[in-house]
């Protein structure tokens, strides 16, 4: 058997994504590629006012447009489709898929058109005439908390949707808040750093906008719904409930999904309307969001104001942190809206062992697009607040920002570490990662370069920041649909392996990483493994991909299902080889007795035997397929350090990134190439937030950044080469030791970039700058205007 090629172990290797050939060649199938005989198209008439009472909706002209088959108002839709459910346990006002009597943000649907083609649908939507009684637009969240200048929802007279909630030292469930420790910390401090910090509103902007095809087949009383979603099983759950079908009668398919970034976790009104109308009209319906709609009708991210107070001794020991957060959540609670800022509370202490911490959160309704998860979902905001405060402290006491961090880290021997904010950090060694970053960046050398550049009259700065985040969600208590994932692994009759995963990857590369895992586990070539996902008829159960969970949770479910199938296959092989199961090795496409290579049987032969076991081992049923659910007992807490060098144009204020170093610790890596790709994308979005991205509304609640003419997305040419490295601190939470990495770059980079910009402008007396770092803003600071 020496002719058998030796298959290298694949876990840990840089294997190119198997997904990419079809994606880059345009051979993938997205929702808009789904075509069904008799398909009709939807278009939504959307509000062009931020706040108004609907006096009337005149659909006559729309109904007269050639090709239009139906026009329905919000009131008509509400006759068969109830208010939309949310996925958090917090109170929430009614939110109709199509507005019934009041519109509360520009872009809210007011009517829907069904037409033979999308052009006719759009023409008709434009022809719907809505008469509004204008109401004052609520735009400033802090003013909104006084109930001024208007109230969005009658049951929320101060526009406060939630809170104030408090967490931290001295707070226990059902007991009065004890402020003693926090007050003592601040009383003992030599100084308190105080700053109002804005983490601005962003538009997620996946390359593929949202889209849905709903196909109800009356003859079967079944609905198939294709959607550009991150979580088809959750979509199925909610759609089935909303349109009155059992989950057994609804099949949800997430075909190729061109990016989600958290915004496609939501189940949106357009999906409910398509499903309900398809059932009602008994016809297949398609709606594809256009880019202009995406800016208005897909959730936004971030939009938190943080009031930070950091109490410290002159030697850099931090004694306490107070953070008061005001979250501008927009007009409604979407699926997870209310929960996202609570993540910011949980992670507010960062990677530091602060003795006393108090975080308070108030969520406020305004006349803007609702916010919800966007890459990082609460952790970027938390990281930004604490890291900005640490950076300001370092500057205040003239201490190296790295050394200040080092002084306040949670020490490695304190893990698992229970934070005052309710998290239990699984594992960590922050100093190791910090040191690796300092080394990779050449920190001392960079400081010399900065000095030289400044001497030459250039405006150059260095930034350093740490992050710790929570991902791999998580125990069911922490995830509303359940905190597990599911997988089924099947060794087919020909020895090929098919596996399903309930994680629904849409860019994370799990078709590759999961195949690497199974190829190693079964000792077969990776080309013999296929990973299927994104179809509830194929994948029996699942939650989905968000919160950097697909590898840590979905990967473990797959791993565990593989263990079960392999054990059964070993019993068949043991019977054939007349050996003990525990003596068998699966490698190089064979199964052999350990130490006896001549005993090897081809993997495919054993597989075939398992499906036609003419002489069958006792108590062993035919077939090689099994499944596993996996629920971790805790989240994972990856961490890292980033270092950036920025130059600000002295004449114009334009900031240019000269150097970007990111050292991440996500535990064990299955495929470092894919990990780096995830980091690159994350960094791009985080740097984008710092430098060029911001959703802006005017005083009337009109969005001023409604297209790519005004809302910038970062492009590859905007960046220097990212310098990446990793440290490895495995998690004990799952057997893979993998933590998750999809959001790390986005979470870590904004404070690093801003720290570098502040450092660059520090000769001008600058200590903080709010994002985005618009050139005009930086230029004005260099002119000596107050920040």
């Amino acid at each position, binding site marked *: 058997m020496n002719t058998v090629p030796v298959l290298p172990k694949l876990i840990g290797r840089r294997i190119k994504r198997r997904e990419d050939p079809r994606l880059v060649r345009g051979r993938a199938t997205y929702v808009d590629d789904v075509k069904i005989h008799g398909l009709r198209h939807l278009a939504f008439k959307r509000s062009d006012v931020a706040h108004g009472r609907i006096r009337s909706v005149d659909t006559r002209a729309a109904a007269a447009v050639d090709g239009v088959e139906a026009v329905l108002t919000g009131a008509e839709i509400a006759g068969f489709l109830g208010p939309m459910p949310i996925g958090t346990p917090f109170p929430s006002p009614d939110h109709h898929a199509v507005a019934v009597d009041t519109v509360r943000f520009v872009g809210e649907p007011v009517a829907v058109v069904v037409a033979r083609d999308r052009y006719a649908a759009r023409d008709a939507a434009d022809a719907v005439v809505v008469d509004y009684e204008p109401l004052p637009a609520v735009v400033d969240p802090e003013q909104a908390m006084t109930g001024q200048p208007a109230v969005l929802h009658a049951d929320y007279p101060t526009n406060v949707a939630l809170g104030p909630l408090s967490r931290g030292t001295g707070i226990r469930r059902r007991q009065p808040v004890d402020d003693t420790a926090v007050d003592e910390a601040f009383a003992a401090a030599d100084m308190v750093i105080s700053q109002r910090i804005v983490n601005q509103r962003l538009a997620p902007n996946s390359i593929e906008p949202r889209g849905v095809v709903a196909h109800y087949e009356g003859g079967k009383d079944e609905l198939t719904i294709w959607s550009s979603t991150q979580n088809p099983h959750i979509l199925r759950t909610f759609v089935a409930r909303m349109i009155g079908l059992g989950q057994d009668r609804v099949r949800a398919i997430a075909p190729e999904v061109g990016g989600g970034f958290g915004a496609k976790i939501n189940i949106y009104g357009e999906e409910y309307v398509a499903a309900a109308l398809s059932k009602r009209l008994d016809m297949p319906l398609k709606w594809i969001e256009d880019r202009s709609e995406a800016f208005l009708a897909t959730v936004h991210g971030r939009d938190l104001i943080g009031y930070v107070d950091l109490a410290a001794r002159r030697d850099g020991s931090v004694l306490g942190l107070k953070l008061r957060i005001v979250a501008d959540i927009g007009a409604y609670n979407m699926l997870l809206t209310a929960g996202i800022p609570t993540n910011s509370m949980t992670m507010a202490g960062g990677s530091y062992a602060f003795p006393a911490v108090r975080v308070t959160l108030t969520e406020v309704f305004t006349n803007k697009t609702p916010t919800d998860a966007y890459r990082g979902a609460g952790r970027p905001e938390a990281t930004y607040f604490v890291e900005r405060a640490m950076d300001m402290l370092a500057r205040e006491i003239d201490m190296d920002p790295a050394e200040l961090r080092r002084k306040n880290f949670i020490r490695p021997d304190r893990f698992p570490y229970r934070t005052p904010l309710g998290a239990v950090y699984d594992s960590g060694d922050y100093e190791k990662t910090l040191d690796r970053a300092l080394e990779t960046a050449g920190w001392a050398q960079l400081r010399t370069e900065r000095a030289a550049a400044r001497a030459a009259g250039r405006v150059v700065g260095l930034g350093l920041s740490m992050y710790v985040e929570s991902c791999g969600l998580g125990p069911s208590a922490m995830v509303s649909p359940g905190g597990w994932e599911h997988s089924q692994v099947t060794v087919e009759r020909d020895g090929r392996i098919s596996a399903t995963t309930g994680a629904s990857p849409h860019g994370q590369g799990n078709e590759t990483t999961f195949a690497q895992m199974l190829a190693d586990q079964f000792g077969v070539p990776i080309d013999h493994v296929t990973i299927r996902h994104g179809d509830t008829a194929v994948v029996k159960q699942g939650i989905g991909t968000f919160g950097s969970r697909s590898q840590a949770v979905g990967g473990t479910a797959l791993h565990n299902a593989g263990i079960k199938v392999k054990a059964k296959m070993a019993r068949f092989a043991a019977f054939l080889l007349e050996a003990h199961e525990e003596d068998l090795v699966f490698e190089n496409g064979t199964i052999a007795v350990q130490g006896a290579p001549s005993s090897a049987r081809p993997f495919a032969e054993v597989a075939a035997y398992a499906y036609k076991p003419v002489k069958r081992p006792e108590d062993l049923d035919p077939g090689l397929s099994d499944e596993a659910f996996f629920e971790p007992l805790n989240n994972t807490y990856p961490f890292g350090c980033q270092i950036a060098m920025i130059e600000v144009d002295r*004449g114009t204020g334009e900031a240019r990134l000269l150097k970007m170093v990111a050292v991440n610790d996500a535990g064990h890596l299955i495929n470092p190439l894919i990990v780096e790709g995830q980091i690159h994308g994350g960094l791009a979005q985080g740097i984008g937030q710092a430098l060029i991205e911001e959703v802006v509304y005017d005083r009337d609640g009109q969005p001023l950044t409604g297209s790519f003419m005004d809302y910038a997305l970062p492009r590859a040419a905007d960046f220097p080469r990212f310098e990446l490295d990793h440290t490895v601190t495995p998690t004990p939470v799952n057997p893979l030791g993998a933590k998750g990495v999809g959001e790390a770059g986005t979470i870590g980079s904004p404070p690093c970039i801003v720290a570098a910009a502040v450092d660059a402008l520090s000769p001008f007396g600058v200590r903080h700058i709010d994002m985005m770092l618009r050139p005009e803003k930086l230029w004005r600071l260099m002119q000596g205007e107050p920040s």
Partner: protein
Amino acid sequence: MYAPDFAYYRADSVAEIGRLLRKHPGAKLLAGGHSLIPLLKLRLAAPPALIDIGRIGELKGISVADGRLRIGALTTHAQIAASSEVAAHAPALAAAAGVIGDPAVRNRGTIGGNVAHADPASDLPTVLLALGASFAVATDDGERAIPAGGFFQDMMTTALGEHDIVTAVDVPTAPEGQGQAYEKFSHPASRYAVIGAAAAVGLTGGKVGRVVVTLGGLVPAAIRAGSVEQALSGQAPSADAIADAAAAVSNDLGPDLIGDIYASAEYRRAMAPVCVKRALTAALKRASSVAEAPAARSPWWKPSWL
């Protein structure tokens, strides 16, 4: 992003464009489509008909003759940016064409479409004004030439009549010793110019000779910075002289400048001298090097900026 209904015609010659324009009042010409199609999809424009002129061969290509560079209206920005003739004879135009939008825009967008559209933040009008270009226009009655100075009249408004068609852009070849530059402060989203400044400067006996400076992005149509030109002309090209001349641009800016959420009018006003100074500095650097060593002038296959 679905355009309203329109009729589509394709013209195979300039004469046919004229016939179709007369036959279909309100029709718009479709060349590269990179300005028109977004307007249609945003439903900001709803012309009854589009006349596709994109395949008319006589409107494409670049040639040099009689001291001028003739660039066909359908020549793309990418072709202009890559042209050795343009690089040799109108280097600021090559530079500007190379920083328009992004590669996709440059591969489709055309010079004729660009100038006829006359976006105030567009790069080419600023440069063409600085280089003293003129536009060959086919009219109902034949042909006429409109100099760039009289062409751009207001925001998206030109001297073109209802049936007029830009067929080519004529750019005088740079005189011996002239240095040219285009300085762009780019918007990160649109990649249009927040401010664009072009300079064409000649040196005579170590002093600044003829100098033209233009600005885009500040007012509804590109303008000449006459005060800057006057201040610099006849001066020795020192850094101080350049800075002083650039500062004079404030005299060329009226009370009302364009402003938006990215860059306020006040900020743009402050940026005007910064961009002018950079454009002048770069142009003078090239001018000096040419004047000092005329024999070393780049052969046509090697652009002077290499």
